[in-house]
């Protein structure tokens, strides 16, 4: 299954929020939707889910316009919240029923997921008696119980302890392996790097960067060198402003236009006692800051 968003535009009043957003997400892969606060991620997700229509543009599944009656979407919103005063099992079945499941099937599915997440003991408790992390796991059931084709997870790891984060990772990996389209939206770049094959960076309502994450990293400008050495001072003096010290103490040298990487590396290893020297490969964080950091 292939999900495509094609030139989505949306304004609220006079304020344009999305200015022609186009995305491609395939089943069996996780897709990372990145962007700063207010970049338009939630609006994109809501349009995808049919909460409100786009002013312009189209959403397609395998080339045909999306039919929300046929394509089920599971959603874990960033703003978590269910009915605090209601019995967990009751409300989870209710949400699954709203998604079109029959009552009996909904009950079975909810029980299965509660067991998978180790929450069976809380089945007949009120939601507000649970800890925040456990409430999150309950919320995850609302996104998954009806076995959706597309799963949208907005900041899924925030508020989870490492054990629960591991559990969620496993669940997400299983769903990806079952051929679901998984859409991630997160500021925690390490998780995106771990899961997502493809990413898109949204900046002020426009796609600033989109593509395969490894490819993006490889294509980024390779004009910086990382140098680990005991003789940091003389090198810093030599390169001046072009040389900065990284957190782990290594030096980061930005090469000027037209200066060869190989030549510089040979020059440095010849002149100083160098422990390690390599071309700097940016992390997703660095890429994010570079593409989303400007306006917005």
């Amino acid at each position, binding site marked *: 299954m292939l999900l495509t968003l094609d030139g989505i535009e949306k304004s609220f009043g006079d304020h344009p929020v999305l200015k022609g957003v186009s995305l491609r997400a395939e089943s069996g892969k996780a897709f990372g939707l990145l962007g700063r606060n207010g970049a338009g991620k939630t609006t994109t997700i809501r349009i995808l889910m049919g909460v409100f229509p786009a002013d312009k543009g189209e959403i397609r599944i395998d080339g045909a316009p999306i039919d929300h009656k046929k394509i089920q979407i599971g959603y874990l919103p960033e703003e978590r919240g*269910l009915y605090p005063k209601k019995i967990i099992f009751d409300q989870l079945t209710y949400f699954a029923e709203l998604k079109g499941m029959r009552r009996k099937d909904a009950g079975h599915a909810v029980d299965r997921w509660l067991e998978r997440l180790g929450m069976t003991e809380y089945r007949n408790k009120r939601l507000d008696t649970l800890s925040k992390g456990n409430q999150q796991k309950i919320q995850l059931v609302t996104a998954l119980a009806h076995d959706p084709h597309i799963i949208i997870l907005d900041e899924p790891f925030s508020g989870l302890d490492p054990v629960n984060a591991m559990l969620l990772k496993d669940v997400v990996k299983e769903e990806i392996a079952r051929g679901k389209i998984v859409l991630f939206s997160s500021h925690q770049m390490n998780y995106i790097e771990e899961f997502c094959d493809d990413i898109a960076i949204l900046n002020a309502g426009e796609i600033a960067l989109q593509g395969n994450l490894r490819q993006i990293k490889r294509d980024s400008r390779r004009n910086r060198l990382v140098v680990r050495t005991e003789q940091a001072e003389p090198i810093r003096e030599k390169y001046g402003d072009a040389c900065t010290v990284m957190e782990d103490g290594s030096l980061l040298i930005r090469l000027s236009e037209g200066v060869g990487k190989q030549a510089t590396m040979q020059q440095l290893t010849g002149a100083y006692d160098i422990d390690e020297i390599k071309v700097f490969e940016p992390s997703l964080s660095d890429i994010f800051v570079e593409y989303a950091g400007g306006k917005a």
Partner: protein
Amino acid sequence: MKQFCTILKFELKYYLKNKIFVGVTVFLVLLICGVMFFPRVLEFFDQEDTVDDGPRPVMLIRAEQEELAPIVCEAFSSAFTDYDVRSTDSDPDALREQILQGEAECAFEIRSLSAYTYLVDNLSMYDMNTTIADEVLQSTYRMQTMLELGLSAEQAEQILSCPIDSQTVSLGKDQFENYFYTYIMIFALYMVILLYGQMVATNVASEKSSRAMEVLITSTDPTGMMFGKVIASCIAGLIQLIAVFGSALVFYSINRGYWGDNAIVASIFDMPPELFAYMLIFSLLGFFIYAFLYGAIGSTASKLEDINTAVMPVTMLFVIAFLVVMFSLSANTVDTPLMRVCSFVPFTSPMAMFTRIAMSAVPWYEILASVAILIASVVGVGVLAAKIYRVGVLLYGNRPKLSTLLKSIF
């Protein structure tokens, strides 16, 4: 449709499992039970202690003309059965002293059959003694005069107590008979709409503030959501009303014998069925129109605390409608131009038109027009409310202005 049923079931369960809802219903049923069994219980106790009557308060009569004393005393004794009426010849100062000392509750200084002074320690607001005394003295005076003019006692008696045989035929509505159940119905409608309207608004706002809305809005259509909520609250309200009025009817029929001579209570329970049908139509439609408004307003509030100020305009509108109808009802002026207008305006017509139907003769086409306008308005307000809801539930932070809301809807 399936979704709508799911929402309806879920929301209805919310009411029926709500402790306050159940508590209030049970309390009302018990209260009605108590009221309806009251005469039976009263009679049971009356039979047991009729003997224990206690001493009656003393009323002193002092006549300036000695020959009047026995006549007046006798007449007052039969008129004031609650008092121990005694004749006295103590002087005025001693009389005052006796009252201040508490030996007597009150006294009459009779100067002639047409002049007296009433003495009492603290004059109660509800003291009717002078009114009774006026009547007693008047008839005594008439009696004496007739006797002096040479009529026999029997002749005089006949003239004074001439019985009148009268019959009243009401060609329109009997306002006395209809007054009480109209009053009760309007009041019940008022309570139900305010109570359930608030409940709908709070329900919507709490879903929003708990952010359950984030999931709900992506799972279902807001129109179905809105209609599901309102209809669920309507069913809950009906269940409560049926419980209260049904139990009243059951308890009344058990105790009918004990209430038999009470015209007011009898009139309430002998309400004509067509009026009951009108009541049902108007209360349902009135309920819907306000519940939709309350629901829409609830969706614009981000926090539960905002609800009270947010619903104020609607509540004011409703209270004004209620007051107009109540004043007209109490003053028996249900066909004034104001009431006529109110009986066609959708937000006032449920109460105004029902009152007019119950209390006066309203042509059928006026009723039909009023109901038609009301139904159209309910549909219109319902659709508008669902649209406001769709926009409102996604807006957090400051409550949107009406103009902003309308702009984003159309």
